[in-house]
């Protein structure tokens, strides 16, 4: 059921007289109509699609203009391309939540203009999340620390958006969990991007620095090695493989 017009938080400006005032004609629930059903339908319209009562996200507003996704707001604040990919990925898989389309509504504020062709969004983001599902059991642990191995921006735009935001932190070493907090995106998504960058050789797990205690153990190792070889290979025995 559509919300009464008085309950709609006005975070947009209008380009026509009926914008957000009269009956909202396009509304529904993601249980019955998913975002991938909705997007093609909205690609020829200008206006705002508001999604609310979502399980894992605050209110999301997608602004469409001239067949393109112009801007995305999360909780009434504009978000960048990287966050927008994550949010749309979440929305595509969301099966709980309501939506309403406000014809003619435009974003009041949009510092990061996306202008993504609507017909390509689905292919690009759905492909990413299908791939994510395939590697879910191989994603790095959320607390593994990663570091840059070389500074080359990946060609794939899905990765380059992440790279641009994350590479400063990766120079020092950072985990998926820390990145998720810094970039404002789900930790499973940062784990996925880090795996892809690791496969490209752009990042690697940082090895923890040796402590003085470990350094001292070289002497212990020398003592143990002699005993170990003697035990398993006899006097003068040598291990070779």
């Amino acid at each position: 059921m559509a919300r009464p017009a008085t309950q709609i938080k006005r975070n947009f400006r209008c380009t026509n007289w009926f914008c957000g005032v009269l009956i909202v004609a396009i509304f529904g629930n993601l249980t019955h109509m998913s975002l991938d059903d909705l997007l093609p339908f909205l690609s020829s319209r200008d206006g705002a699609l508001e999604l609310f009562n979502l399980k894992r996200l605050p209110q999301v507003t997608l602004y469409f203009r001239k067949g393109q996704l112009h801007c995305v707001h999360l909780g009434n604040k504009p978000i960048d391309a990287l966050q927008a990919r994550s949010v749309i990925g979440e929305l595509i898989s969301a099966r709980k939540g309501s939506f309403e389309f406000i014809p003619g509504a435009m974003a009041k504020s949009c510092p990061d203009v996306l202008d993504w062709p609507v017909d390509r969004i689905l292919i690009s983001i759905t492909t990413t999340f299908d791939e994510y599902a395939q590697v879910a059991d191989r994603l790095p642990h959320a607390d593994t620390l990663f570091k840059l191995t070389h500074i080359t921006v990946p060609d794939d735009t899905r990765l380059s958006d992440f790279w641009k935001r994350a590479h400063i932190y990766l120079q020092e070493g950072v985990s998926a969990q820390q990145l998720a907090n810094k970039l404002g995106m789900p930790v499973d998504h940062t784990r996925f991007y880090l795996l892809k960058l690791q496969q490209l050789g752009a990042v690697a797990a940082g090895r923890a620095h040796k402590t003085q205690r470990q350094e001292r153990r070289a002497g212990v190792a020398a003592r143990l090695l002699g005993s170990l070889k003697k035990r398993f290979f006899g006097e003068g025995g040598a291990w070779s493989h």
Partner: protein
Amino acid sequence: MEPLKIVVTGPVGAGKSTLIRTLSETEVVDTDASASEVIGKPTTTVAMDYGTLYLGDQLLYLFGTPGQDRFDFMWEVLSEGALGLLLLIRGDRPEDFGLARRLLDYITSRQPVPYVLGVTRQDQPPVWGPEEVAPFFGVPAERVVGLNAKDPRSAVGPLVRLLELMIAEGQIA
């Protein structure tokens, strides 16, 4: 003299329990239980394996960690303060390499523990050899050793390599 700890870890069925039984000079304390899911063998380690090895007057504890992902909290607890880490992978199960890499990266990025990878089942070809495994894990070739976990002279190989690398690193330092 303070006992030292070697941690043996890896995915389910990599040969951790077998290796500890092969190397330990005391009866291995294990916590095997019937597997509650299909993992390719009837029992699996649910807490840890524990064996001992005396080298001269130095006591070594051999701890084997459970391979299932849900026990990941134990990987770090057991690795803290360890003399070294042996990560075992089955050479004939490349489908487990991703999980093993995840495990290695997690532990070694958080704990400054020397490590060696052991590729088991080298006696049962076709298997991946150590030289093929090293690039996948992004580790130097000298950190990967092939072995047969049932043969004592082969099973001890990763431990020998671990000590050799520790000595070499100590000399460099």
